[in-house]
């Protein structure tokens, strides 16, 4: 049954794609007009149309995963951190709160809190996110926190070209007039 026409079972949304009820096989729908960038599950089916300039295309359903590991959560605070120094006792960090105006703080975090896969990312200057959140899973509420290091790709060739261009612009701007003057 199409959930959008069933008011007794309102649409619900998770963070992932959900199939239309009853649909278990992959099915491609032809696109029509401008598709929607909202989370596909909340968009529902193709029945909602917001006008000719904003025609929506339903998401392509895929088999629903078990989602047994997905849990709902509510962030309490997210600290964006910068690693200042690292030694065997831990890493010294500077923390800035993202979800409220709180003063900048420093702290020390033991290395055991860092995932093995992130250990090589823990170096001075690295950015990480320390999320303090409430985890809701199977009816229970737990306090939890996690550290996730920022992962950005390597500087690309186009980035390198941009750096060179910005450096050239800087050099052109800096017209030294008194350089190495010795009295």
């Amino acid at each position, binding site marked *: 049954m199409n959930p959008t026409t069933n008011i007794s079972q309102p649409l619900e949304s998770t963070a992932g794609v959900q199939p239309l009820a009853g649909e278990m096989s992959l099915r491609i729908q032809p696109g029509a007009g401008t598709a929607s960038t909202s989370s596909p599950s909340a968009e529902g089916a193709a029945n909602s149309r917001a006008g000719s300039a904003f025609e929506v295309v339903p998401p392509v359903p895929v088999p629903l995963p078990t989602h047994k590991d997905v849990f709902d959560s509510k962030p309490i605070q997210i600290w964006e951190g910068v690693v200042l120094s690292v030694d065997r006792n831990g890493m*010294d960090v500077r923390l800035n709160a993202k979800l409220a105006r709180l*003063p900048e703080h420093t702290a020390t975090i033991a290395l055991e809190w860092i995932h093995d896969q992130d250990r090589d990312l823990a170096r*001075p200057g690295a950015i990480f996110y320390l999320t303090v959140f409430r985890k809701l899973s199977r009816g229970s509420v737990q306090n939890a926190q996690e550290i996730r290091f920022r992962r950005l790709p390597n500087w690309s060739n186009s980035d390198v070209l941009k750096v060179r261009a910005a450096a050239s612009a*800087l050099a052109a*701007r800096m017209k030294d007039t*008194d350089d190495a003057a010795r009295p």
Partner: protein
Amino acid sequence: MPRALDYGRAPYADEIEVTIFGPGYGEALAVHLGGQRWMLVDSCTATGASEPASAEYLRQLNIPAENVKAIVASHWHDDHVRGMSRLVRQYPNATFFYPAVFSNKEAQAFLAAYSGEINPQLTRGTGELYRSLMSRERSVAVKNRVEILSGTSPEFRVFAFSPTDAALSQFLAHIFEYIPREDLSLPIGHAPPISPNLSSVVLHVDLGAEALLLGADLERHEAGWDAVIADEWCRGKVRAGVVKIAHHGSITGDHPDIWTQLAMQKPLGLISPFNNGRHTLPKAADVMRILSNTREAFITSGSSRKPKIPTDQLKRLQDMCTAIAPANAGFGAVRARRSTTAVEWQIELFGSAKRLSNSGSKAA
């Protein structure tokens, strides 16, 4: 918004003053050279404030913008340049001085890479310095023996003691691995702190009978303080009666010969702290050493380490973190002022500033 400090009156034309600002993480100086001529060194902001501390100071004293003759960025570290680009815009008549290391193309590429222009989220000290340099038609590279400013009525000359030529080349060697290149597999990230600090500009302000020695963050190293003290030209300058203590009082920023070769006996000491997690400066041993080398010393902010986080959030953070402390322990300023004919400096403390003492900071 923090409550503004009341800085009282502006200096008279025949008064010299040096004021150091510090929020716990950050340092800036405002120097009145007499005759309504001002020099600003570095930049910091009080917690919650958007205006740089020295700009707020000058605004309160009703100092016209055109009276600021020089702005010096002693080095590129975040705690010394916060708000610098705004200062530079606010005082367009002031010449902007920067460490000569950044005259080099590789160093310029380093600044550009980490300026935030290419990756918006990368912006710390390097971004402020980059924007400051880009906003100026005229900026001057500074290294040892370069004259910053001079004037008469009253007479003064400001020179740089550093960075040395050896420091320039060592700095470039250090930053090379962090400059993006096609053949380098380098993850995008913030510019890491480069240690030791060799690019720092130490300033000598010659006032005739005595001098001010503004030590920035220069560290003891063959290309740092060792080279400055070994330079006969530097040793030949007027001795300092006021020393802005280098590198927040750390042992790495100290050199015994500063006190025997560059300063008068037992000068006045000015210092800003540095709160950096476990590594806070000055440590107790540093305080003892500073007090043994000065007749008295003053620090811009206190030592309060109590976190300023709501209790429930703090408890959660403590599950993972130790030594949680505010980066800024209270904003303060220390002003040393005297007339050109006087010998003694008058000290005034503002905000969280205190006299430095062995038993923990206490009010003067």
